[in-house]
């Protein structure tokens, strides 16, 4: 189980470290090429390799001669050239192994993180999910995980190569000539300082820029959704003005960051060029000494290549750093989600037990609030019970807390105060899967999944036979229209069930809950798009299931008026509980609702 991004890193620590070290081999060859070149030049000067004063050059020159292609300058040059080419090819082959490991490792890490994010999302409670927001979760899965993957890839590729080239060139310089070595140390320090300075500034700036970009995006999507209201209120100009302030701020920040960023290339160039001038100056005396001239000049040529290589990797590094910064921001955001411990989860030893004569569901002084400070209760002091086989109606206005009660019964949330008992056991101790298995939920949204009608029903009950599915469809008054399709229950369901009307979707969802043969059926405002007649038929079928407990949430009095008990909610509090006739007499809010819907002519 991955609870942090670093858990995944740790799993692949071998590949993460191995690949950069393989790349070092290529770097070694890159560093050797200028040396061989120097050896070839030196051989032109000293026909006998053992006369070359410089140790490295002497060694390499001897190596070139050892192939025995003769002592002519032409033979030396060609042998040297071929050796370098072979090294290049071998280095290339080895690098490709490292590139493969890097590609594979970073993609695997990205894949694992994506899987972990998805798994975590599925385990979160509704409360935690709503706090983060669906949009954010989708961004994490579909954007941040790729950012992380990309950053990892660049990191593995550059992690060892850049410092190795820098240090390697430094060491070689010391060996070639100590004076050059000292000058080179200066280069390394300066480049390091410049980079650290620039990158620290620009990575901070980059995060700011990203925030501005988010604002621009939100602002645009806001005005596209509100186009009519904006026109109707003649607010176009003021919206434009607000937006242009945001783009101005974005521009200013981007320009600011770039003022710093733009320093890297020129400064790196300046450092490497000036050092080259210094090196040549330091070697002045040797250059005018005809015995050492070629020796020294060939050293300068080698140094030129090293400085060019350093310039190249530095530029490459700075280009990648912004990506690596993005990846680390993504990593932080991913860790935020992965580190959440779902508040609703099974206890260590969840129970499945039924205490006889206890109501199926009992709320005992239950309070619930959405904010963490728990100052404002959304549901306050609910106290009621639902017995097996009963029909229990819940009615109340917009935002009165009806659906929240259902969410508490399903344990999408846990209560803040009080206890909910399920079959006599506190719901927190009851096995979560068993609880949800007992319940067939039809929610307001009529959620259908892409696939077929059958595949949707099999989600609810994997063992359902076609006959059972047809039976459930009949009970939900959906059989008639499904039967008209040529492919019947194999009829396709588009994403979000967009190929069905609202009423058809609701009936299909009711059928899906029924195919589960649930002990408790919950209809959460799920017949709103049905005409009263169909609504009534479904209710009659459902109430014939004597063993099934029915919980019906509705805004329509007609839907619940025949229930055994009706709970009337207002602002999160119970304002009435009883049968229809009782409530009409004793609950003014219930009566007002009734009057608003049933008009007496």
């Amino acid at each position, binding site marked *: 189980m991955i609870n942090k991004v670093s858990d995944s890193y740790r799993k692949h620590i071998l590949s993460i470290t191995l690949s950069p070290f393989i790349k070092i081999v290529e770097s070694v060859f890159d560093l050797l090429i200028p040396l061989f070149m120097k050896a070839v030049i030196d051989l032109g000067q000293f026909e006998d390799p053992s006369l070359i004063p410089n140790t490295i050059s002497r060694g390499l020159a001897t190596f070139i001669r050892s192939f025995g292609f003769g002592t002519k300058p032409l033979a030396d040059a060609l042998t040297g050239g071929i050796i370098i080419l072979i090294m290049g090819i071998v280095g290339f082959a080895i690098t490709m192994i490292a590139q493969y490991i890097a590609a594979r490792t970073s993609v695997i890490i990205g894949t694992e993180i994506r899987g972990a994010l998805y798994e975590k999302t599925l385990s979160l409670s509704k409360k935690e999910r709503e706090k983060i927001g669906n949009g954010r979760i989708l961004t994490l899965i579909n954007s941040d995980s790729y950012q992380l993957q990309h950053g990892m890839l660049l990191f593995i590729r550059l992690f060892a190569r850049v410092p190795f080239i820098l240090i390697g060139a430094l060491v070689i310089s010391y060996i070639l000539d100590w004076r050059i070595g000292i000058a080179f140390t200066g280069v390394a320090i300066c480049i390091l300082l410049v980079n650290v300075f620039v990158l620290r500034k620009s990575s901070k700036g980059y995060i700011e820029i990203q925030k501005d970009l988010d604002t621009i995006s939100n602002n645009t999507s806001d005005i596209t959704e509100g186009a009519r209201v904006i026109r109707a209120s003649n607010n176009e100009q003021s919206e434009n003005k607000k937006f242009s302030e945001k783009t101005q701020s974005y521009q200013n920040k981007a320009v600011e960051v770039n003022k710093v960023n733009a320093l890297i290339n020129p400064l790196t160039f300046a450092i490497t060029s000036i050092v080259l001038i210094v090196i040549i*100056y330091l070697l002045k005396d040797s250059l005018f000494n005809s015995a050492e001239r070629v020796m020294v000049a060939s050293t300068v040529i080698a140094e*030129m290549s090293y400085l060019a290589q350093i310039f190249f990797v530095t530029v490459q590094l700075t280009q990648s750093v912004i990506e690596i910064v993005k990846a680390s921001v993504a990593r932080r955001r991913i860790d935020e989600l992965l580190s959440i411990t779902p508040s609703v989860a099974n206890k260590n030893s969840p129970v499945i037990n039924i205490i006889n004569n206890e109501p199926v569901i009992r709320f005992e002084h239950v309070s619930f609030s959405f904010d963490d400070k728990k100052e404002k209760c959304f549901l306050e002091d609910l106290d009621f019970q639902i017995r097996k086989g009963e029909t229990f109606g819940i009615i109340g206005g917009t935002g009165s807390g009806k659906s929240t009660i259902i969410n508490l019964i399903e344990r999408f949330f846990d209560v803040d105060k009080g206890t909910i008992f399920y079959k006599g056991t506190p719901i927190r101790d009851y096995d979560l899967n068993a609880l949800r298995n007992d319940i067939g939920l039809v929610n307001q949204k009529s959620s259908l999944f892409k696939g077929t009608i059958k595949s949707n029903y099999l989600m609810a009950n994997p063992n359902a036979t076609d006959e059972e599915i047809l039976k459930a469809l009949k009970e939900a008054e959906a059989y008639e229209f499904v039967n008209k399709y040529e492919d019947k229950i194999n009829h396709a369901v588009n994403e979000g069930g967009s190929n069905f009307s609202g009423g058809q979707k609701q009936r299909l969802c009711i059928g899906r809950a029924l195919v589960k043969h649930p002990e408790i059926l919950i209809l959460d405002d799920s017949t709103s798009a049905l005409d009263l007649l169909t609504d009534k038929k479904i209710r009659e079928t459902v109430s014939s299931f004597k063993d099934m407990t029915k919980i019906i949430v509705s805004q329509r009095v007609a839907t619940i008026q025949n229930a055994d008990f009706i709970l009337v909610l207002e602002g999160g509090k119970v304002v009435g509980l009883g049968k229809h006739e009782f409530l009409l007499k004793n609950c003014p809010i219930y009566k007002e*609702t009734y009057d608003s819907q049933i008009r007496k002519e």
Partner: protein
Amino acid sequence: MDAKKRLLHYLKPMKKSLICSFAFAFIYVCCYLAQPFLLGKSLDSTNGNEFNIYLIVSLVLVVIGVIFDYFFEVIVMNVSQKAIKNARNDIFEKINSISIKDFDLKAHGDMVQLEIRDMENYAAGMFAVFKTLMQGVFTIIITIVMMFMVNWILAIGVIILTPLSVLMSSFVSKFSHKHFKKQSELQAGISSISLETLNNIDIVQSLNYEKEALDKFLVKNEELKKEGVVAQFSASWVNPSTRLVNNTIYVIIGVSGIIMIPFNLELGLVMAIMSIGKLSSFLSYTTQYSKPFNEVSNVASEFENARASFKRINDFLNLENDINEGKQEINNIEKIEFRNMSFSYEKNKKLIEDFSMTINKGHKVAIVGPTGAGKTTIINLLMRFYDPQSGDILVNDISNKEITKESLRKNIGMVLQDTWIFSGTILDNVRYLKQESTEQEAIEACKKAHANIFIETLPDGYHTYVTNRSGLSEGQKQMIAIARVMLLNPNVVILDEATSNIDTRSEILISRAFDEIMKEKTSIVIAHRLSTIGQADSIIVMKDGKIEEIGNHKELMKKQGFYYTLYSSQYK
């Protein structure tokens, strides 16, 4: 305007900056490329004076070059940032000024993408292209000149060999492009799976379906992994393989140069005399020369993206602005008259036909009818989001085309079924139509809209930050939209299914509050539920774009016509 013209239009104000950057690029490239030549000369020099002069000139040129290089980069970045800022603002203004007709044809997500992804592509492309082009072209030209100055034989060699590395990198990117395309298809699949799950997660959890959902996701994720590895790996050939080719060229040139040194006099070729200093210059130029070619192939894909993005930006900016031909101002609305009006969204599908009706000040008019009868279209036409194909709408006996849209709309407050909440606090949202109102007035309006009850249960009350997609139910959003109009208190109120998601009891209380503030004023109500319109002065029953019946509730019930059927189907 075509894309080229549009681009010039954005760049024109920055002509000076562009000329500057052009000059700066030339200067610094010259300074930089003089280096290998000067240093080579210094290696070959035979006396101390000469040697010193070469080094000093070289040092001075480095300093000058670095300064110009820095300012070049700053200017190019400024130019591209300024250009996209202007384009961003233009797109935003365009969204706000195209006709609603054109607007409705566009997907909202596309417009956001224009502002974000397309702009980023455009900026990145412009920056990269300017930088690489100016710098690259100068580098190539000057290097060729310098190489010929040093040794023409080797110069020809370099010019022939360099395209090899370009060929190599373009071959590799073509191959990897295919896999990246496949990869992005799989990514889209992952994205839609996660979207579906997240949209329906209550049901997923309630069905104990988490494990199966995860397994399905992991299968797709695994496919993506396989393709991802191939795509990343194939792309990672570019750098090492160009490096290999460049190293090869370097060696060939180096070895040829070395061979040439001792043969100098024997060959006796003019301008081909080789020395150790010349060799050093030459090897540097070899490296310099291949660089812009590789960079060009790197920016080629950025350039492609930028071009495609800029085309989309340009197409959007080319949409016509909404016409606002009216000149007359009105201060209040006394009378609204629809006269023989016909309208359709699609050419061959008539929606509203020969519609005539008069609404006088102080009246409450209800429009009812089945879905698709054209009720909302009447509102679209009255607000001039659309114009009728024939017939006229008269406001205070003036054709509404002669009235400025601002003054027409100023007098009307409108609540639609699809309510709009923007990112901001509840209070900001309520005060949107009347920004100068006080907090107290806004709270009063919320009370009238019955929104105060739920607002007070929110964590930060009226100061809770909300967005269109989070936090509030449809019913709650509708209450806020109603509070907005309550606060505005306009001459005319249009309620288009404005309470469809609000419970019936609150609905009645809200409509009572409306009746209170709308005394002496005009209201137009479209409702699906008929309970709230009993008190309307006249009820217009629409069917298939035509008026079926007009009358008040009593008259229509007595008539036992279409209204009667509608009504009794709701209240059985």
